[in-house]
């Protein structure tokens, strides 16, 4: 068997695993290019390339998240294929971005296809409601993993198997100006990620912190970890004066008191939580979104509480309804939901309170979770991680991994148990009040980091040198006297302005690629290497 086929199978399997991991487990965040690029680098035996491509794509994709079922460019698969091709054709990481970005954009369509294909499993599950077959409903949810996984695995398999020859040939045929142009474009691509972040963060309120971050990175040459520490100090001060103490008191008040074992045991809770980690979003589809997964995850509770078939059918029907929230914040909702069903003394299923609780909480919790966990915490950790990875250090992705597995998982388990024991009201107030203040503080840290990102990760130099007789005028040196990193600042400003003018991010990224090539060919910008 030839090596390409083996590699195609290995990388396709990894693509399959990574989308499942990103939907459910969330220990590694394999939905992000930094993480898939790193692992692909290890698999193809070229870690350096994997780190560079993963990090470059990550920086271009900062601020791109999926909310409530919107599909985004599949940068994670783009990083897998991009790393493989760059290694095969000995492309520079920046030039390989010219390949990875279009791949990511194309694969978006398959993401949409997977979400549609799961409708089939959803409707099969609906058919099992009649016979109240909880096991088969759960199975349908798990089978959704196939649509998701194959939507990544198939294109990766064929890309690797059939693509590597033509890609190598194409790269060999490519004129030098195009490769140089792509390299220049790769150097300015992070401007998109930065501009998207600036649109998410409260710039108008906290812009001074952006300036501080920029100054220490551009003038004092402090690296990004240092900038993040400075941001942390500023955020802590603001948080303290904005009344952070009282949040700590609420947290102390929420300490668990051992409750008497009711009908639901600790073992049941663990079963639900494990299913939530493994399968919660596998059956995601456009019609009910997380509804199928929710019914599957909570079915141990239905088995335990409703021996009567009629009541169980009602419970199953209710839980199969539309549901969608932030995947981490689903944990406290599940916990509170179990408590409500356990405390119900009536023989019927407490449909009104369960539906009220689920529909009442999913929206607000999605808002809190998306802004806090995905928009802010991820941004800070990933920009530091990607900037370390750009320098060829595996410490970057390792930091991201540790943060994800410890912080995300601890929050999920803690909030699940606390909501079960103490009810949703307290957890809501606690999570809301605390997360909101934390979000504010984290925004300050985020802005400082973004200020530091501009001069450190947009990598480009003015190539134009002015000759007049024997006078040689190096334009870059002149610009540095006005403001270090003036060109990166201008490019970020340009993209930010374009995005405010409703230019879609997809067009913005293609525009940056073209702009990079054009400016490189015109001899205005170059990649400094």
């Amino acid at each position, binding site marked *: 068997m030839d090596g390409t086929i083996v590699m195609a199978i290995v990388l396709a399997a990894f693509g399959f695993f990574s989308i499942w991991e990103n939907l459910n487990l969330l220990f590694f965040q394999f939905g992000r290019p930094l993480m898939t690029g790193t692992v692909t680098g290890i698999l193809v035996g070229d870690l350096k390339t994997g780190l560079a491509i993963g990090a470059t794509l990550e920086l271009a994709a900062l601020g791109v998240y999926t909310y409530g079922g919107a599909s985004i460019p599949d940068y994670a698969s783009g990083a897998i294929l991009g790393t493989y091709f760059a290694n095969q054709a000995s492309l520079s990481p920046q030039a390989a971005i010219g390949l990875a970005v279009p791949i990511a954009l194309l694969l978006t369509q398959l993401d*949409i296809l997977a979400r549609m294909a799961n409708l089939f499993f959803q409707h099969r599950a609906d058919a099992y409601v009649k016979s109240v077959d909880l096991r088969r409903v759960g199975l349908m949810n798990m089978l959704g993993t196939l649509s998701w996984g194959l939507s990544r695995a198939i294109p990766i398999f064929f890309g690797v198997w059939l693509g590597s020859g033509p890609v190598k040939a194409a790269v060999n045929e490519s004129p030098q100006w195009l490769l140089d142009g792509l390299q220049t474009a790769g150097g300015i691509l992070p401007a998109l990620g930065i501009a998207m972040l600036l649109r998410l963060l409260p710039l108008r309120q906290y812009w001074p912190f952006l300036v501080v971050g920029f100054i220490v990175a551009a003038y004092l040459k402090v690296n990004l970890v240092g900038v993040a520490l400075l941001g942390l100090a500023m955020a802590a001060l603001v948080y303290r004066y904005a009344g952070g103490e009282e949040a700590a008191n609420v947290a102390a008040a929420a300490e668990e008191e051992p409750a008497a074992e009711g009908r639901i045991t600790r073992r049941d809770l663990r079963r639900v939580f494990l299913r939530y980690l493994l399968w919660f979003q596998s059956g995601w589809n456009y019609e009910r979104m997380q509804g199928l997964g929710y019914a599957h995850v909570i079915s141990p509770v239905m088995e335990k509480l409703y021996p009567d078939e009629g009541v169980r059918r009602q419970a199953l029907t209710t839980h199969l309804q539309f549901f969608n929230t932030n995947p981490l914040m689903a944990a406290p909702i599940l916990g509170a939901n179990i408590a409500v069903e356990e405390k119900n003394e009536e023989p019927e299923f407490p449909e009104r309170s369960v539906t009220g609780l689920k529909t009442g909480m*999913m929206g607000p919790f999605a808002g809190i979770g998306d*802004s806090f966990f995905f928009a802010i915490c991820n941004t800070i950790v990933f920009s530091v991680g990607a900037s370390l990875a750009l320098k060829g250090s595996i410490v970057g992705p390792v930091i991201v991994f540790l943060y994800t597995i410890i912080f995300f998982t601890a929050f999920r388990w803690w909030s699940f148990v606390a909501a079960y024991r103490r009810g949703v009201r307290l957890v*809501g107030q606690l999570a809301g009040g605390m997360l909101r203040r934390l*979000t504010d503080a984290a925004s300050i840290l985020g802005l400082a980091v973004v200020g530091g990102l501009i001069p450190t990760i947009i990598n480009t130099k003015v190539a134009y040198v002015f000759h007049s007789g024997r006078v040689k005028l190096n334009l870059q040196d002149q610009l540095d006297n006005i403001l270090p990193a003036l060109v990166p600042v201008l490019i970020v400003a340009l993209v930010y302005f374009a995005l405010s003018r409703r230019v879609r991010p997809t067009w913005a990224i293609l525009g940056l690629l073209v702009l990079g090539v054009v400016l490189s060919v015109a001899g205005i910008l170059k990649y400094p290497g």
Partner: protein
Amino acid sequence: MPVRHVRIDERLIHGQVTVRWTREVGADLILVANDEVAADEMQKMLLPLSAPSGVKTEIVTVEEAAESLKSGEASRRRTFLIVKRPADVIRLLDSGVQIEEINVGNMSHREGSKQVKRSVSVTPEDVEAFRELDRRGVRMTARMMPEEGFKSFMEYLPGVAG
């Protein structure tokens, strides 16, 4: 001052709204108009928690919203109005609120509803209400996220029984 942006969204204030739309619209007040939610203590407590900092939230009945939009706080602020159903937009118009344009963001699947767009399912009553809004000259777009195009929502409805 007419309202900044009117959105139909089943989930009211959630990620798409807090992270993207509020800033896109430049709003400083999110006004949620829904009779059931205004009567539900739990939702009233939870919904404001997710609003971005510096943005005020009000959760009121449709009637109260109409008052606020005509002569109350919402008429003086940069208001982002969110309702769950097109029928509630008609009620607002009937109480004399000026609405020129609405955006249909998310309407989830329900008993008897039909999917007309990736994030929008409508019941026959909804379709009737949309046609009525169209007759009254209200412009309608269907943008779940700000990047989407301004295609008229009515173009999604032909062939749907109403």
